[in-house]
């Protein structure tokens, strides 16, 4: 067991896989000489050389399509998006290319590609650099979407994603890159499609992914002091979603709150609500609530930005609502 930062865990995952399989290459902007815009690929150019760690021009559609084409004929590329905001430029190749190639070709051309990079907001990066777009990718059949929250999850899931023969959208987070956590030694592969119960409880189910897991855990810690026992579940893979774990938890607690960074309309949480109301209808003691980002482009001003994303108070309020509970005095 070692203590690694989230970015070190990703670095290790890529290195281990690239050592194991020579068909894996990494390409993206600044991944080589610059050691990665967020230093995730630090030292990899030195280890693997310029044919395997490729600095690309700023040409997202081009290099994503290149990745898809190469994956069709025997390579296993990892395409880094400097941030997933820029993936919008590559959407045609992700959706019309990667996601559909296997189906359109009648099963002949799988696309074993990983597209990875940070998503969601950081601090005051403003409207075009702060988007949480995972629901866009979740919408497309043929793609898998993974969003780890801890270093151990990051390493285990990235290794599995690289070994998966399907196109995987692997969304990390800038604000999590520096977080530390225990990472087991060895091939600690984590299967896709399996959620993780980050905190066990019995009074209410909180479902959160990526950085929102920590908002949920903070809220849970506060609520514990008030005698509310919160269960926090991190789906880890958004598509395919681990419905069984989520439903089992709600059947136990009878109530759920979903915490997500993205915009509310047609967000990931909306899909989770649908799953829960369908499969756990008779177990629900309250409507399922969502705590989401505000339905606005992200503002620059610090105070406005703070209002635009969920915080632990929002989460606590929602939990109190589903528990029909008056909060302890002092809270709103």
């Amino acid at each position, binding site marked *: 067991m070692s203590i690694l930062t989230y970015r070190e865990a990703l670095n290790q995952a890529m290195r281990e896989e690239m050592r194991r399989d020579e068909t894996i290459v990494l390409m993206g902007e600044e991944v080589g000489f610059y050691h990665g815009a967020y230093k995730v690929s630090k030292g990899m150019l030195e280890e693997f050389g310029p044919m395997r760690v490729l600095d690309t021009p700023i*040409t997202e559609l081009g290099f994503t399509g*290149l990745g898809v084409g190469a994956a069709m004929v025997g390579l296993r590329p990892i395409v880094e998006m400097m941030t997933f905001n820029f993936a919008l430029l590559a959407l045609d190749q992700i959706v019309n290319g990667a996601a559909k190639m*296997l189906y*359109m*070709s*009648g099963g002949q051309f799988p696309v074993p590609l990983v597209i990875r990079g940070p998503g969601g907001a950081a601090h005051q990066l403003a409207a075009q650099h702060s988007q949480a777009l995972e629901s866009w990718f979740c919408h497309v059949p043929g793609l898998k979407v993974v969003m780890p929250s801890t270093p151990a999850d990051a390493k285990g899931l990235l290794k599995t994603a690289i070994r998966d023969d399907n196109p995987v959208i692997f969304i990390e987070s800038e604000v999590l890159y520096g977080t530390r956590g225990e990472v087991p030694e060895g091939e600690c592969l984590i299967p896709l499609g399996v959620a993780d119960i980050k905190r066990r409880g019995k009074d209410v189910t909180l479902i959160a992914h990526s950085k929102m897991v920590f908002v949920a855990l903070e809220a849970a810690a506060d609520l514990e002091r008030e005698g509310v026992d919160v269960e926090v579940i991190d789906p880890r893979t958004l598509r395919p979603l681990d419905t069984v774990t989520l439903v089992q938890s709600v059947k136990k607690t009878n109530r759920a709150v979903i915490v997500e960074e993205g915009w509310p309309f047609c967000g990931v949480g909306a899909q989770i609500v649908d799953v829960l109301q369908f499969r756990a209808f008779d177990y629900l003691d309250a409507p399922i609530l969502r705590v989401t980002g505000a339905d606005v482009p992200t503002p620059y001003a610090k105070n406005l930005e703070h209002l635009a994303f969920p915080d632990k108070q929002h989460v606590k309020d929602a939990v109190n609502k589903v528990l029909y509970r008056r909060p302890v005095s002092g809270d709103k």
Partner: protein
Amino acid sequence: MQPSDVGSNTANLTELFCGPDHPPAQTLEERARREDPALLKTLLEQMLLIRRFEEKAAELYTLGKIGGFCHLYIGQEAVAVGAISTLEPDDYILASYREHGHALVRGMDPGEVMAELCGKQSGVSKGKGGSMHLFDKRRHFLGGHAIVGGQIPLAVGAAFASKYLKQPRVTFCFFGEAAVNIGSFHESLNLAALWKLPVVFICENNRFGMGTPIERASSLYDLSQKACAYNMARTWVDGMDVLAVREVLKEAVERARKASAPTLIEARTYRFMGHSMSDPAHGHYRTKSEVEEQRHHDPIKTLTAALETIALIDSEFLEELDQKIRDIVEEAVAFAERSPEPEPQELYTDIYVG
């Protein structure tokens, strides 16, 4: 094997291959005399197969047996036939949605191609792709793509993989002239030249992007010149002359295989039908007389005439050939007709591996 030269901008590649007069002007007949007779007959046969197949596809479309979009290659046969005749079986081909001809030349079974157009399970993509998504892994035919320019980055990727895996493969990427204005074209050519990849970009300039002539869409009409922006070797060729196409592509293939460098080739051609079965052959965007005039340059007609002139073939040969082709096409249709539709559960297969 050289790694990509970051920031390199040498011009020596361009010098290998430039100028509007290249290849030297020769007639089709002159080229034919110097070419292997068996190959000539093969080229004619292949063009005729495409022609008859596409005519039959048009017929089936009007009968409702082919649905959706159907883009015919009639008039442009010389480009696919001439170009692909320079490839090895292991080389990769990517094309647009007007790819029936390319698929047939590559050796894909006409019955299976027809079945795919008719949406049957025996089709090359199990009926799930359709006219615009013909694929054949064994023959390295990487599709069949419906988004304009979508295949260009893919071709660069295939070329990258070949270079990476140290395979002597070349990748051909066919696209229309309207694709040279889309972003993916520029990004792809830049990457191919920057990283020195073994890909040949073949722009089939049939002068019309659906209903828009090239002059209304492109700030530069001499399309092959666009390669200059990427320091890439380039040329244009008369796309109605199958042997001229073949000659030019042979050089490009050699450059790709030996120097691992890309080429942009503009093949100037013409389509006699509309953009697709839903579009008119002539109308607002071009006159009937223009189309009829262009038929004089029909590549099959001109090659036939040339081969007759050099006494390689006669009318009896042509009749037999035509009959043989018609039989092949009829059998393809019969095969497609008697094939079943895909099973309902195929709706949910091939979305994910495993």
